[in-house]
Every structure is written in structure tokens, then in C-alpha cells.
């Protein structure tokens, strides 16, 4: 990503200086072109992202119950309230457990898929598409399929049918939190949807590794397989890996759809931070002040984790 800006690609000389013909005005004016093409996106970004963020930060200092245009300033009371709310801190724990598992698993699975597809001699495009396709499915639709047909609790559910071949009794996958089978439901769903997308990122990175490196390594006596992978491929994928892990972490923080649709809000477990905020702000309390305070805290957490991760893994520091 950063390469386009930092590398200082030789900007094509503006053509308008040489030819002053009016018909070339649109094609030749980089500033106009820039605004023409980024303008609509920027307007959307400002209206739908920056204004709500600012509004939310403003709301978090007000007593905003049943209103989004409050007038009663309460200082840090909302922050105090949300931080002492055991549900919110509990949800942060839920998220941490979830992220600690889903991030490495998705990373490994998508890297594995990428390596497999990369080595294919034929039908590569086909398999690439097959693995990528689930990305196009919405979380809500997938959650309903997972909940109602694959992991439903009756004997003809897909998972229970398969289990019955091995003589295992019907399992209650979702309603019964002990043992917590619901994690299996949620994790498989997320892996299915996400792995293909990150596979594409890894595939692109794999194709960017110069073959000379492998040749040189082979000449130096590196064994193909694990050794080459460990000392050539993996270090070469470092930038992509960092980006993928970062994206995965943010996606995990934002987990909502599948938890909301599979677990629901009538449970005391597996409630993600966003679900808690949803319940606070949009639930029966309609407490937009506390909800916004929670959102600000969550954003700060994401920023801190991102920066820390960048520090540890050297993201954004340019190529060495």
C-alpha cells in the first residue's frame, strides 16, 4: 500500500504544459482528476464515517438517553458507567479469547490455502475462485445457514447427521453453553467466510517473491519444503502477514453479525463488545451517551493494539 506514496514513482509529467488545447483540459489536470475520482468517496467518508465519529465522541460527554441531540453535559460519567459495567468488561474478555483463537487460525488457514493454490499447475483460477467465493456471502445469511441447517439441534441437522454415523447422540450446538460448542459454530463460520479473502492477499505476495531467491537458496543447499518455507517464503511474506493479522484483529474487534444472529442477546455469554454497545445504545435503554463512551473506548483500544502491533512487527516502517 505504502509503496505508491513513498517510493516516489516518477510522476508522469503533466501533459497540459506542452499541449494547451482545451479538449485536453480534463485529462491533463491532475488536481481536477484527483477530486473528480476521490471526491464522491471522500464525501461519503466524511458524512458516514467522520461525522458519526465526531458526533459519537461529543455524545459520550452528555446524558443522551432517548435522544441524539442532548443538552445535559455530564463530563466523564458515561465513561465511568461503561467501565464499571461488568457486561462490557466481560465482553472485552470474550473478544480477547475469540481473537486469540481466530486470528492465528485464519492466518494459518489462508496461508495454507494460498500455498496449495500457488503450487497448482492447472485449474488454479478455478480453485482461487472457489476459495474466494464465500467472501461474497453476508455474515447474516451465513449465520442463519449455520444456525438453522448445519448446526441445528434436531436429528436431521447436517452436523448431527454426520455425528450419528459415528454413533454420537444429537448435540445441542448453540443453546447449551456447557460444553461451549457454540464456539465451533462461530469459528467455522468465520473461517469459511474469511479464509478465501486473505488467501488472495497471500497468493499475490507469494507470486511476488522472486524465483531467483529460491534458486539461490537451492544452490546454497537449502532443502525444499520446510527449510525453504521457513527461511525464504515466510520472511518474504512478512509485510503481507502483518497486514493480514492487523485486518484480522480489527475484524475480530468488530465481530457482531454472527454472534448476534447465532447467540442472540438473550444470553449472558459470548456477547462481543459491539453487541454490548448495541444493547446499551439501541436496546431498551437507548442510552446513546454510555454507548458512545464505550465506542470511544473501543476505538482507542483498536488504535493502541494496532500501534503496538506495528511496533512489534515493524509495520509501516518502510521496507528494509
Amino acid at each position, binding site marked *: 500500500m505504502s509503496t505508491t506514496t513513498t517510493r516516489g514513482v516518477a510522476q508522469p509529467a503533466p501533459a497540459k504544459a506542452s499541449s494547451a488545447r482545451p479538449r485536453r483540459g480534463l485529462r491533463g489536470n491532475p488536481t481536477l482528476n484527483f477530486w473528480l475520482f476521490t471526491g*464522491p468517496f471522500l464525501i461519503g467518508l466524511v458524512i458516514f464515517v467522520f461525522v458519526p465519529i465526531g458526533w459519537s465522541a461529543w455524545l459520550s460527554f452528555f446524558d443522551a438517553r432517548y435522544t441524539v441531540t442532548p443538552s445535559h453535559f455530564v463530563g466523564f460519567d458515561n465513561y465511568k458507567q461503561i467501565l464499571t459495567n461488568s457486561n462490557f468488561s466481560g465482553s472485552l474478555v470474550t473478544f480477547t479469547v475469540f481473537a486469540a483463537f481466530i486470528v492465528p487460525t485464519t492466518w494459518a488457514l489462508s496461508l495454507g490455502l494460498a500455498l496449495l493454490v500457488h503450487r497448482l499447475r492447472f485449474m488454479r483460477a478455478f480453485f482461487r475462485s472457489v476459495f474466494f467465493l464465500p467472501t461474497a456471502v453476508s455474515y447474516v445469511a451465513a449465520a442463519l445457514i449455520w444456525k438453522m441447517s448445519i*448446526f441445528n*439441534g434436531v436429528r436431521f441437522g447436517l452436523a448431527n447427521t454426520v455425528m450419528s454415523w459415528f454413533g454420537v447422540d444429537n448435540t445441542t450446538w448453540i*443453546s447449551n453453553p456447557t460444553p461451549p460448542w457454540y464456539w465451533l459454530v462461530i469459528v467455522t463460520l468465520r473461517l469459511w467466510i474469511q479464509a478465501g479473502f486473505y488467501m488472495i492477499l497471500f497468493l499475490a505476495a507469494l507470486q511476488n517473491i522472486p524465483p531467483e531467491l529460491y534458486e539461490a537458496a537451492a544452490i546454497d543447499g537449502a532443502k525444499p519444503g520446510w527449510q525453504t518455507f521457513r527461511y525464504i517464503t515466510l520472511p518474504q511474506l512478512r509485510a503481507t502477514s502483518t497486514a493480514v493479522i492487523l485486518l484480522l484483529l480489527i475484524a475480530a474487534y468488530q465481530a457482531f453479525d454472527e454472534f448476534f444472529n447465532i447467540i442472540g442477546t438473550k*444470553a449472558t*455469554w459470548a456477547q462481543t463488545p459491539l453487541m454490548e454497545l448495541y444493547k446499551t445504545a*439501541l436496546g431498551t435503554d*437507548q442510552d446513546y451517551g454510555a454507548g458512545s463512551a464505550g465506542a470511544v473506548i473501543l476505538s482507542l483500544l483498536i488504535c493502541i493494539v494496532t500501534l503496538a502491533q506495528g511496533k512489534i512487527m515493524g509495520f509501516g516502517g518502510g521496507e528494509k
Partner: protein
Amino acid sequence: MSAMSNSNFSRRSLFRAAAGMAAAGTLAACGSNNGRGGSGGSGTQLTQYFHAYGEAGTEQALKRYAAAYKKADVSTNWITGNNFESALFAALLTKKAPDVFEFHPQLQLVKSGQVADLSDLIDPVKDDFNPNDINSHTVDGKIYGIRMIDDPQFFFYRKSMLEKAKVDVPTTLDELIDAAAKLTTSKVKGLFLGNDFTPIQNTLIWSAGADTLDAKNQIAYHTPGVIEGLKKLRTLFTSGHVLLDAPTDFWDPSSLNQGLCAIQWGGMWSMPAMQKALGDDLGIFPFPKVGSAGKQSVYNGGWSIFVNAKGKNVDAAKEYVKWLWLDQKQYQEDWATSYGFHIPPRTSIANSATKLKSGLPAEGVKLFTDYGHFDNIGFDQTMITAFNDVIASSVRKSGNPEAALDACDKKVNVELKKLFG
């Protein structure tokens, strides 16, 4: 990526951008399906919010009634999904808030000035309503909503399955747990209480001889009887004799109809569909009593229509609500008896509703009158949600019911203080 830094746009890329914008325009057009039936009546525009009723024909019926109203152009938002209350509450804050919406009587809506006083509309016909339906909507002598339908909830069972397993209709919770065990086979579970057990939370309280709130609006659910009931529900939950993770929830008749369970908690609205699927192999009974001090109970739920007091067209909305839910008796009867079965809250309509006069529907009406408990307007959504957590942590998880109820008390007391000072 690198192509982007090339400012020498080709004609093709311009074309591509144009095509993208056109596609975006098409997508935006998709969003305009708001249920407004074309350019109907002129003048006032009204919006009404309804949750998606499961029975076939309900949505069309509602839109048909609305279309028959000439004084305003009424559009219907039919909210699908299982969180109607969040969708409704969120919408009420916006500029596009509904003018008219259905919900249950809840005090916080009155206290926050969200719902309009409808006393002047209802007073002339007040005597025609079931007094309970008036009481549950009355705060300080003012009536804030019009009951459209009363929906008793009780158990439905397959007579043939109980006979085969030699099980009598349970009258105590112990007998119910026992029956669930005897009725469970490799293919059929004995009992279905909804996927998360929350549908029976109120009847559990009533059947244990307790109540949600007492006459002084203080907590009345925290009793030894309720704790005993919660403990028994926990054994039931883990027994393997209840149907869980069913593809449909308690409000849908499918679980019983498809033979997934022998006894199902449900609402009277499901009765026509069950009778169609099972014929005479169908019986009903109230929630059995819990403990020695308990007595059987039925939850008289239902839906009421409210006018958004903060809306732009309060008077027009009141006029519409009066027209449809007070004047148009044929629509009210159609709504109550033509799709699912509901009990009309108005005596005159209930008396003429022949479908509810005989057979199983008549038994349902009897359970409604003999065992029914109505909503307490003071026990609002926050408190209901707090009790959902009790079910989650002490029935679905192995938490201590006493501790769960203590946690619930805390939340309920905060809310009570907000409502009653």
C-alpha cells in the same frame, strides 16, 4: 495499485467509473421499497410499524385495511427478524419515526412522553373492552394504547403421543419434567419451551404463586417458589428431554407439527396451523403449578396500537387509529380470527367470533379467562431483559438462581426508581 498513480486516464477507465456510478444508483433505488402502495391518497402521510406476524396473509390484510382509509396515505413497515423492539425504539428517535406502531404496554413509553393519550378515543367504547385490557394500558387514569388482539400462550400437546406413553396431562412442574422424560424417544423430544426458555419466564413466576411486581410496584418475583422453579428448569434443560436448537422458535407451530416434540409451548395464534396439520390429535393445557403454593397459569400476551406523541401528525394518526381499531369492527374481527387465532379484546366482537365458540379454540378462550395473567405496564422491557439474564445464567448455565435473581433485582430496582421515583 501502481496503475492508480498514473494520471493519464484512459477512456476506458472513465467509462468504468461511469458504469460503477450507474451500478451504485441502481443499488440506491433498491432501498426505496418502503411498502408505500404507489401514489395513493393525497395529503397526510402516515407510517405504521408492525412486527412480522408469522401467519400467511397477515401483511396483506394489514395493508388492505390501511389502503381502505381515505383520509391519509398510510404506509406499513413490516419488521422481520427477532428484535422488533430494538428496530422500533431506534426508529422512534429518528425523523422517520413511525406515527403509529404496535407494541406492548410499557410504562417507560408513557413516562418519556413517547405515546399519546388516547383516552378521549377509547372512553365512548370503554365498556366494550375486556377490563383487563383497559387496566393494562391505563396510567393515572389515562389510557395510552388500544389493544388489538389478546394472545394467550399455553402448552400444545399431541394426544396420541401422551396416550402411547401412558402420560397424563401434567398439572405440576414435576409431572411435566416426568412427562418429558417418558415422551422422549430416539426421534421425538418430550418438550419444547422455545430455544432459549425465555418464553416461559413470566408463567414460571405466576405458576410459583409470585408476580412480576406487586401492587406497590415493588419486586414480587424473588420468592423461594421461583427459585425452586428455576432449579427444576435447570434439571429439565440438562435432561436431554427438551428440544433445543430447533430450526424455528416457540411462536412457530413447526416443531410440534413436524413431530420434533410431543409438547410445545406456543401461542393461540398457532392453533389454526396446528389443527390443519394434526387434526384432532391436539390438546392444550396451562403452565403447571410450581411448588405447593403455586397455581397453573397462562400468559395473556397480545399486541396494542400506539400513537407516537412526538410524531409530526399526531392528530391524523389518532384519527386513523380510531377509524381502524375502534370503528372498523369487521377488520378487527378479520385480524383476530382469519389468520392466526387471537382473542378480540372487545366483548361485542368476541361474542360474534364464531370460530372461537367451539372445540379447541373455545378451550383456549377458557384457559385465557380462567388462568390468564395480563402484562403489568410497570414491568417494562429493561426488567424483562434483566429476567432473561436470570434464565440464561441459572437455567441454561449452571449459575446459582439466588445470585442471578439478586443481579436482576439490582437492575430492576434502578429502573423502578427511574419510573416511580
